[in-house]
């Protein structure tokens, strides 16, 4: 029969065994991490050798590109829900992941598109990204002005600090970072079209409409004040004036004003005398904004016509302008659209209705450009 040990020896033994087991396991994990999670240096070939990136493997493609200063649009911050960050992966992407499947259509899969926040860089990759994304940078800026355009629409002006210049064309958008605040646990990015003309390249102006329950718009409306520092990246997007000289129809509603407010001032500055009719739809008088400025421009520029319309003017609005849904107004004004180009910006529902109407007017799909809000 063995004799029990002294109490202090038992304590020592118990502690020793615990420490030994823990140490062995920790050592195993360290070794495993060293050999299994280490993917070494991987090369990402962007756009057929336009850039060669040498990076440490293991991070997501989206994150790896970001550390190299290439910003792929992403609204959800890499959580695999918004599906904006699609990138063409020619080689090395591996099999399609279950988390990507719901975000890609069959055509996109056949076209080698992948969701870049989901795939990890585990080996050398060859990818294709739109050329203009090379110009995308992260910017720090300070809020210079927040002013009310209507009861639920604000104009936001951000003066850029670092870098201090952003080169863009009218119609492009930036992504504004809403930091963690209140119930919002982590930063999210939301896209906003720039409303300032491209000549005003040391600032970003945009028009923000309050989305009830929206993370970023609530932050802009309730937490952001003049003098605050913000982070944004851009410019993104291919919504812009075409190279042709065709007559244009612009159709917008609400904060869909943004790109057109940029474009018209650009055209006025650059003397681009291209016949343009701008239809702007709202519900009541209180939903209209920039009315005086646009009317003044329309008076000065013979080639520009501005047609605001209210779908349900209130009794006290004393509205003498066009009344009806914006599609009805456009329908009344255009008879033959075969030589026109259409530019649409606003909610998905408005864009679809307007697009359908333009089709019936003879505008082919390649002459209709739009920027759809989600």
């Amino acid at each position, binding site marked *: 029969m063995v004799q029990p040990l002294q109490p202090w020896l038992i304590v020592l033994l118990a502690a020793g*065994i615990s420490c030994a087991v823990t140490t062995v*396991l*920790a050592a195993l994990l360290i070794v495993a991490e060293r050999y299994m999670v280490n993917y070494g240096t991987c090369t990402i070939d962007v756009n057929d050798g336009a850039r060669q990136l040498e990076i440490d493997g293991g991070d997501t493609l989206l994150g790896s590109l970001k550390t190299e200063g290439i910003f792929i649009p992403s609204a959800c911050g890499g959580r695999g829900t918004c599906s904006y960050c699609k990138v063409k992966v020619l080689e090395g992407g591996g099999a399609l992941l279950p988390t990507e499947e719901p975000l890609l259509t069959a055509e996109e899969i056949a076209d080698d598109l992948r969701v870049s926040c989901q795939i990890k860089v585990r080996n050398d990759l060859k990818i294709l990204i739109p050329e203009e994304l090379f110009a995308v940078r992260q910017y720090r800026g300070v809020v210079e002005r927040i002013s009310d355009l209507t009861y639920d629409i604000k104009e936001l002006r951000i003066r850029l600090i670092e870098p201090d210049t952003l080169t863009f064309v009218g119609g492009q958008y930036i992504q504004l970072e809403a930091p963690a605040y209140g119930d919002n646990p982590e930063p999210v990015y939301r896209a906003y079209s720039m409303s300032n003309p491209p000549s005003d390249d040391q600032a970003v102006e945009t028009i923000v409409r309050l989305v009830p329950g929206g993370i970023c718009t609530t932050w802009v409306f309730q937490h952001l004040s003049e003098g605050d520092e913000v982070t944004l990246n851009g410019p993104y997007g291919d919504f812009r004036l075409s190279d042709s000289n065709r007559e244009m129809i612009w159709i917008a509603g609400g904060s869909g004003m943004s790109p057109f407010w940029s474009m018209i001032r650009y055209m006025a500055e650059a003397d681009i005398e291209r016949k343009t009719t701008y239809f702007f739809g709202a519900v009541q008088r209180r939903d209209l904004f920039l009315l005086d400025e646009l009317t003044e421009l329309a008076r000065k520029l013979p080639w520009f016509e501005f047609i605001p319309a209210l779908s349900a003017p209130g009794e006290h609005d004393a509205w003498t302008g066009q009344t009806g849904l914006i599609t009805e107004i456009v329908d009344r004004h255009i008879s033959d659209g075969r030589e026109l180009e259409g530019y649409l910006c606003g909610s998905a529902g408005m864009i679809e209705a307007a697009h359908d109407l333009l089709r019936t007017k003879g505008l082919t799909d390649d002459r209709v450009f739009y920027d759809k809000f989600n």
Partner: protein
Amino acid sequence: MIAELASSPLDGPLVMRLLVIFVSAAVTENILLTRFLGMCPFLSISRQMRSAFGMGLAVVFVTTCTVVINWALYAYVLKPLEPYGLPAESLKLILFIVVIAAFVQFMEMAIERISIRLYFALGIFLPLITVNCAILGASLFMVTHVSGRQFGGWDALLYGFGAGVGWFIAIMLLAGVRSRIKEDSVPAALRGPGITLIVAGIMAMAFVIFQGMIKL
């Protein structure tokens, strides 16, 4: 046949003995429905058959492996030192948790390296398992069988496998029931967790009938 074994469940030939241990762990002592361990993932991952399947497989795998590792730790380190006064009963709790946590970490890394598809089918459930008390429960109940009788490595393997399979059966049954529940026919106050707990309770009552079958 099984009723006959019940008189002396572990005395038959090896294959019979292992079968008894397996069936007992999976059904009679179903870790979920007779002990109500591992309830959290049981309720939250059982909405769809597909994810319940992945979670269930992950539990089967981790339970089998950790019960064997913990058996070795107990049988070769803790139990031999018990006569010297080592508080094996208290130490096992700490050490088993550490082993499970390290093993899950290790498996997550290994699966991601070996097959990214397997990782997405199975691996994403692994972090949830570290805190699944059914896993720790299986190891602790295994010990109660070890003390006082011969319980070898094969026995432990089958016991762990059986406990995991028991959990797997339970979550698949629940997911099958839940996918057939029409939410709008359930009173508003009972929708979601409420009706799920009632279903789990009825399932547990049904499992009571296995109690008299085999007893380890």
